């Protein structure tokens, strides 16, 4: 193994060596290395395989635009596929693995695809694999899927944590290169709140890769001194390892900070990544520029890389990418690379300059081939030679690396994420950011500026302009001189003619020049069509390297300017962001909050089994020793309520207090039935409609005083009903004097139901609650023995003599305990929502199983609750529409199976006897079903066409989904105590 590490220099900590493995081979690097730098130092140029042809690929860049050097880092629950080696910071013990190859990186069977490439041009798959039809899912597609994709995701749970935070600032600066640093210094020295974010783990941007001097210091030392000053300023926040990935409305930027992605074992005290929402008054994008590859034959050979990347590895990481480096350029960048390489004594094979003439100077003794081009490369897993052509003559030049530069493209993605389209600059031969207003400005290379000196000044000036918008004028930061910078200009060269091998534009997706030609011929000339047909720009790098070349090439094919062709759309995310970071802490059991009733602990100690109900955990049933199934418990609870008495937690119902002198009038307009003259001390069942006349929700309305009501809603609609009432009060009838407050969480509410309910309740209540003193639908505030003030409602969902007792939440458990104790001699048992459901089905009471957002009051037999008298209430007018009053609508009925052993199930449909199952023959469906322990067989509520006329008819219950079909008898939906005698006991 040859070491490509220089003996000195660079910004790595040689005192801190780190060992890592790549495909099982142990390698060494230093703190401050990216994985790519360390691999290059270890002579590991081959890193991965391409997507389609499985061509060997190396490292192309030294940054976040890397298309090729993707690896999987870590294993198990920490495995991260598709990680760019060029940005991953190495740590001791890092395990990196190559991807998309089988059986090994060096020998990959998939590379056979390359031989078939004439048949695998852009969009080939749209033209074949159509016969026989079943083969697509069974044969072709599995093969394609297996061959496609890149890394392999783990399905193990992630052991690490993520978190989210907000940050606020006057000025957000994205990018800590020459422009960003000067912008930050300008605003920071003036005491403004500045956030300087950079995706790199070390701030400084291109200054870290430069060999020039700024003031008296090397560029990187200058950067360090500026950063040290910024760090000392209290109003400046430096955020390295933080990628600003999106610009959203209202000057909110999404950013993700790598907190512990660079450590061997993350501490559980801290997140591995942190998602930031940064709210900025002004922002400056100093995001630099991306160097463009040259599109020539064999440009994907490992060892062919960006000239700027070559300099980064050399100057920042002290790694030479080769021993004999060739350079192919159309501008000054190639010469800068040559100069820096030569300064380190690296042999330069030749500079091939696509331009016939230029003012750039090569280092002494280095051969320059002006007007030349590279047409092919040789070598298997690393470039061994290139074939250059000039004036029709070929020359093979041996090299082990090839630095290329096709010019620069400003990094403008963020500025274009909110609808602004990039603007072609003929002058800069690049797309620049559009004018998106004064809140967001581009600075430095991101604005198309070229030299370090100009970029620094531009950063400063843009910061001054941004601050001037905010009404702040700041002193001028003095920019030191830059020495040793050479001309970096370029002439565009979209495509190098004469390619003798594939000339790739999008490396990762294997899109080469011929694919564009094919797309043009086939009519996919719109740049969005070209992208979608060829897949150019759709890889994990989102076309950061290739898109501009693609546009140049396609524009050239059509004989138009890139300005006419335009670009594809920039969208978040600037670089890919993990699900984990975006999800934050809201995962697993913490995915959503849990709501627990004030009687939760009471239920728990009484043996409750809980069930999810929206956000609530509700007690479903209370299992006794010896009960083997839930049905046994529920049957016992139901029978006990019917025979003795039961206690049920109903605290989850929505509870809204309504006050004001117009409270009654307001409720009269909210509910479809009359509420205006509800007497004080009385409760009434109420129905709310939506404005379209369909039932919205139901509950009870209790009048506690002339100007004071408390209404209940269903558990599921508590929030919506509250919003609905607030909307009506604030926007329909703001003149009404009415106020509400939701008190759902303030009261523990329990239903005590059964013939012995009064015997039990009267032991706790001081007041007289005899049937005469407190009849059905009575409501009053009562004093409990011991002094607690409570509300007592004589209402019933079960059909039994029943009370609902509401006490302040904190007393809930004690009061429930007291009721249980008082009830012990009366055979009390706790019952859960399952028994509650059985009790209400037996009584034919509806819930949202019946009130499913499509049913009218009349459908469920509550037509009388829609007042014809009231002038106005929500839902009145549209409830009379033709379709809502049609005679063949489905109506609520009861069902009993003819064979009493059969089990009715919700979701089954109904047919007339002898009718074939079909949509046309569908007569309705079962909405709720249960085993009725009272009747000893299954019963159901159903919606049946014209159902109320059909009591006694036999229908077929059709449940094809569960393979059942049997007869049932249509009956009244009230199975138990149809005369409601028990309510009035």
């Amino acid at each position, binding site marked *: 193994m040859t070491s490509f590490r220089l003996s000195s220099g660079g910004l790595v900590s040689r005192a801190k060596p780190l060992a890592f493995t790549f495909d099982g081979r142990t390698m060494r690097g230093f703190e401050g290395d990216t994985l790519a730098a360390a691999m290059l130092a270890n002579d590991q140029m081959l890193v991965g395989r391409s997507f389609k042809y499985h061509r060997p690929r190396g490292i192309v860049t030294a940054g976040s635009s890397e298309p090729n050097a993707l690896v999987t880092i870590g294993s198990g629950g920490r495995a991260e596929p598709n990680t760019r080696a060029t940005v991953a910071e190495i740590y001791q013990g890092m395990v990196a693995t190559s991807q998309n190859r089988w059986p090994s990186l060096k020998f990959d069977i998939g590379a056979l695809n390359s031989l078939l490439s004439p048949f695998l041009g852009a969009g080939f798959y749209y033209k074949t694999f159509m016969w026989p039809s079943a083969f697509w899912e069974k044969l072709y597609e599995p093969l394609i899927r297996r061959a496609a994709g890149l890394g392999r995701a783990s399905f193990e749970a992630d052991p690490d944590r993520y978190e989210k935070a907000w940050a606020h600032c006057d000025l957000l600066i994205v990018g800590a290169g020459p422009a960003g640093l000067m912008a930050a210094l300008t605003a920071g020295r003036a005491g403004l709140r500045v956030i300087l974010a950079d995706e790199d783990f070390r701030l400084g941007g291109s200054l870290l890769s430069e060999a020039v001097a700024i003031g008296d210091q090397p560029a990187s030392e200058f950067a360090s001194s500026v950063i040290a000053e910024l760090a000392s300023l209290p109003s400046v926040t430096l955020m390295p390892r933080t990628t600003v990935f999106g610009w*959203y409305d209202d000057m909110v930027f999404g950013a993700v900070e790598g907190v512990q992605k660079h450590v061997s074992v993350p501490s559980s005290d801290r997140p591995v990544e942190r998602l930031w929402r940064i709210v900025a008054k002004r922002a400056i994008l100093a995001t630099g520029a991306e160097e463009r590859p040259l599109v020539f034959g064999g440009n994907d050979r490992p060892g062919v890389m960006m000239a700027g990347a070559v300099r980064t590895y050399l100057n920042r990481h002290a790694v030479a990418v080769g021993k004999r480096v060739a350079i192919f350029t159309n501008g000054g960048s190639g010469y800068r690379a040559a100069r820096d390489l030569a300064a380190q004594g690296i042999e330069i094979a030749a500079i091939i300059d696509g331009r016939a003439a230029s003012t750039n100077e090569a280092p002494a003794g280095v051969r320059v081939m002006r007007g030349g081009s590279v047409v092919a490369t040789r070598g298997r897993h690393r470039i061994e030679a290139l074939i250059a052509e000039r004036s029709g003559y070929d020359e093979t030049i041996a090299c082990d690396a090839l630095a290329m530069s096709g010019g620069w493209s400003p990094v403008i993605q963020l500025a274009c994420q909110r609808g602004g389209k990039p603007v072609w600059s003929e002058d800069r031969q690049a797309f620049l950011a559009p004018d998106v207003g004064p809140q967001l400005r581009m600075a430095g290379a991101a604005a198309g500026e070229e030299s370090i000196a100009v970029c620094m000044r531009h950063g400063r000036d843009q910061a001054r302009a941004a601050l001037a918008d905010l009404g702040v004028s700041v002193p001028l930061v003095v920019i030191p001189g830059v020495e040793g910078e050479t001309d970096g200009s370029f002439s565009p060269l979209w495509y190098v003619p004469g390619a003798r091998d594939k000339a790739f534009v999008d490396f990762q997706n294997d899109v080469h020049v011929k694919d564009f030609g094919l797309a043009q011929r086939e009519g996919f000339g719109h740049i969005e069509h070209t992208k979608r047909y060829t897949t150019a720009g759709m890889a994990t790098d989102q076309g950061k390297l290739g898109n501009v070349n693609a546009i140049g090439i396609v524009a050239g094919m059509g004989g138009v300017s890139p300005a006419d062709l335009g670009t594809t759309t920039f969208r978040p995310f600037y670089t890919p962001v993990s699900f984990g970071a975006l999800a934050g802490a809201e995962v697993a059991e913490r995915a959503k909050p849990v709501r627990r009733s004030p009687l939760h602990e009471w239920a728990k100690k009484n043996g409750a089994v809980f069930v999810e109900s929206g956000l609530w955990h509700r007690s479903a049933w209370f299992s006794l020793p010896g009960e083997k199934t839930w049905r046994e418990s529920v049957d016992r609870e139901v029978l006990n309520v019917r025979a003795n008495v039961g206690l049920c937690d109903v605290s989850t119902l929505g509870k809204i207090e309504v006050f004001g002198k117009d409270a009654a009038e307001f409720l009269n307009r909210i509910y479809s039935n009359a509420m205006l003259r509800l007497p004080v001390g009385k409760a009434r069942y109420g129905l709310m409609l939506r404005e379209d006349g369909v039932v919205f929700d139901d509950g009870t309305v209790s009048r506690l005083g002339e100007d004071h009501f408390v209404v209940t809603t269903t558990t599921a609609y508590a929030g919506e009903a509250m919003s609905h009432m607030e909307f009506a009060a*604030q926007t329909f009838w703001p*003149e009404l004097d009415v106020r509400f407050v939701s008190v759902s969480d303030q009261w523990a509410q329990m239903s005590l139901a059964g013939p012995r309910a009064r015997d039990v309740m009267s032991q706790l209540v001081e007041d007289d609650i005899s049937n005469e003193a407190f009849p059905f639908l009575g409501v009053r505030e009562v004093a409990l023995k011991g002094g607690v003030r409570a509300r007592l409602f004589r209402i019933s969902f079960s059909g039994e003599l029943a009370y609902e007792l509401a006490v302040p939440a904190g007393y809930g458990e004690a009061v429930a305990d007291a009721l249980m104790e008082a009830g012990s001699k009366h055979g009390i048992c706790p019952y859960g929502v399952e028994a509650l459901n059985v009790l209400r089905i037996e009584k034919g009471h509806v819930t949202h199983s019946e009130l499913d957002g499509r049913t009218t009051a009349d459908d469920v037999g509550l037509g009388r609750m829609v007042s014809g008298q009231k002038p106005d209430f929500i839902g009145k007018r*549209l409830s009379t529409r033709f379709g809502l009053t049609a005679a063949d609508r489905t109506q609520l009925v009861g069902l009993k199976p003819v064979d009493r052993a059969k089990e009715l199930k919700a979701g089954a449909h109904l047919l007339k006897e002898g009718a074939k199952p079909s949509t046309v023959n569908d007569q309705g469906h079962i909405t709720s079903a249960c085993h009725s322990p009272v009747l000893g067989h299954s019963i159901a509520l159903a919606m049946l066409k014209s159902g109320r006329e059909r009591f006694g008819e036999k229908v077929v219950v059709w449940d094809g989904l569960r393979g059942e079909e049997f007869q049932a008898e249509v009956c009244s939906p009230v199975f138990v105590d149809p005369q409601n005698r028990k309510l009035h006991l």
Partner: protein
Amino acid sequence: MASLIKCPHCGVRPREEFSVRGDASVVRPSPAASDEEWHRYVHIRENPRGPYREHWQHAAGCRRWLVVHRNNVTHEVYDVMDAATVAKEVAQ
């Protein structure tokens, strides 16, 4: 607008604290209005591109309903008013 909303009662708050109901330009007709008017109120929406008034509720804040006057192409917000204030103005 899609990230932050300035509630007239609570100040600038994140979008997640708000729920949206819909077009605020439609006004609930009087009980005497025609069937056609009622149908249009409940169902028909102008759905313009550009300036738009929409009902939002500061559900996780002051619970007030607001009229957010904004642009539905650029998402720029022109102003946010308490819906009751607006309703009273409309009534006059």
